[in-house]
């Protein structure tokens, strides 16, 4: 496909003395959907946080449209068109749904378009329209997740970094959200970088996948190829789990270690 929109070179990030990202390099092409898989604590969220400037990398480069953006203040990075929908909702709890959505459009000034987008979000998630004056902190977990995604959409991003968008959503909504993401990608050409525990649906949506383990990328390839890999099958898709682990509760070793 086209030229890389986002390119990460040899990134390292620390929490104090703890090294959470240990030299990650990856590429996201324009219009592509890239998914990052990985076990707990692999550093997926840290990777996204480093891209969006919430954390400063120790080493390495984040190139957006070829220009380095690492270490910039997070709001500058948003201005480039990078939107991060964080893990764990992070809504503004004491503001109403409407106000939360307005803040999504903070960087924009095209009033009419903003209202159109607001209607679009309400269209996607009718419950939000119904509760538009409810304080976001009192929404149910899933409703907050919808709000977080909707708020991200209000920013009209070039690239969306989505950290577990399906967290706490009902199966029906998970399907709907992924359908929305696909539509955004095909219709509005929004590039996406997706971190998901629900690997099946993520690989289904994505063009390219990366697998992270303890701060490193241990595997990458097209989504189809990954889907075929045995490791992926057993650890992320939970395929033959039933048969293999069955009553024995024995774990297969990952081959990439």
């Amino acid at each position: 496909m086209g030229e890389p929109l986002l390119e990460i070179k040899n990134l390292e990030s620390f929490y104090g003395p703890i090294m959470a990202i240990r030299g990650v390099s990856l590429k996201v092409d324009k219009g592509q959907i890239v998914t990052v898989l990985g076990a707990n604590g692999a550093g997926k969220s840290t990777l996204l946080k480093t891209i969006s400037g919430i954390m400063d990398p120790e080493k390495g480069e984040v190139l957006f449209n070829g220009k380095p953006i690492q270490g910039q203040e997070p709001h500058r990075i948003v201005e480039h068109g990078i939107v991060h929908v964080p893990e764990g909702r992070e809504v503004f709890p004491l503001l109403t749904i409407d106000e939360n959505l307005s803040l999504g459009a903070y960087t924009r000034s095209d009033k009419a378009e903003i209202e159109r987008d607001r209607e679009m979000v309400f269209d996607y998630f009718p419950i939000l329209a119904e509760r538009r004056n409810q304080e976001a902190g009192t929404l149910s977990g899933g409703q907050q997740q919808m709000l977080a995604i909707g708020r991200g959409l209000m920013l009209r991003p070039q690239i969306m970094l989505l950290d577990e968008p399906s967290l706490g959503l009902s199966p029906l909504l998970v399907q709907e959200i992924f359908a929305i993401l696909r539509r955004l990608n095909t219709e509005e050409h929004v590039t996406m970088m997706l971190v998901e525990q629900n690997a099946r649906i993520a690989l289904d949506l994505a063009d390219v996948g990366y697998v992270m383990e303890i701060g490193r990328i241990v595997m990458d390839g097209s989504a189809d190829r990954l889907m075929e890999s045995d490791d992926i099958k057993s650890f992320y898709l939970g395929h033959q789990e039933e048969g293999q682990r069955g009553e024995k509760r024995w774990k297969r070793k990952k081959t990439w270690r």
Partner: protein
Amino acid sequence: MSLLEIKNATLKFGGVVAVNDLSFSVEEGEVYAIVGPNGAGKSTAFNLISRFYEPFAGTFTFAGNNLLEREADQVADLGIARTFQNIELFEHATVLQNLLVGRHRHRKTTLLEEMFFTPRVRREEERHREAVEEVIDFLDLQPYRNKMIAGLPYGVRKVVELGRALASKPRLLLLDEPASGLSVEETQDMRWWIDDIRKQMGITVLMVEHDMGLVSGVSDRVLALADGAKLAEGTPAEVQANPAVIEAYLGAGAV
């Protein structure tokens, strides 16, 4: 008699009816799952049981005790422990300390004894430690024992929260979305744990979960909620096959 019996529970927030004339009961020794669309009132039902909210109407009986006569902190004394959907751990404490707080309801020593750290306090402490170590072994938390919660990844926190609830040796365990945010592999673990909690520890489990794989894998009975009211109840297979449930919750391409 059922272990937990809820009859005609109703709770409104302003105009929103979060729980609407809901009745269900959980039998001793079973795993009972609640599913339902987002905002159906599942967490609210948990909060009612935990006495965080005062119901508008309804009766709540746990092992013959009227829950409405208890304060929120006394619920734990009855033997009900819970986890939270959004994870509520003690951030500035280690995993070990978090689990030890789970033992709070078994505390026997007085303030004065603790100030002087009498031998009795020491013995009690060792007992608590033993109980907690069992939980740590059970949940494979050894590598994190002395880590601060603030630095743990989401998945581990979920497990620690489960551990904290287990450490209190409850009769009824309320799990609010135990598997959300866990990978397939970890969800598998969760499934075995829930199984063992029920079978080996003899703890009754009431859980809210969106992962239908897990729900059908471990639960004996499932309750489907919508708009705070009962939509369907039955075995996992029955509920999953219920057209109303598919329509409101599972969606056409259900996994």
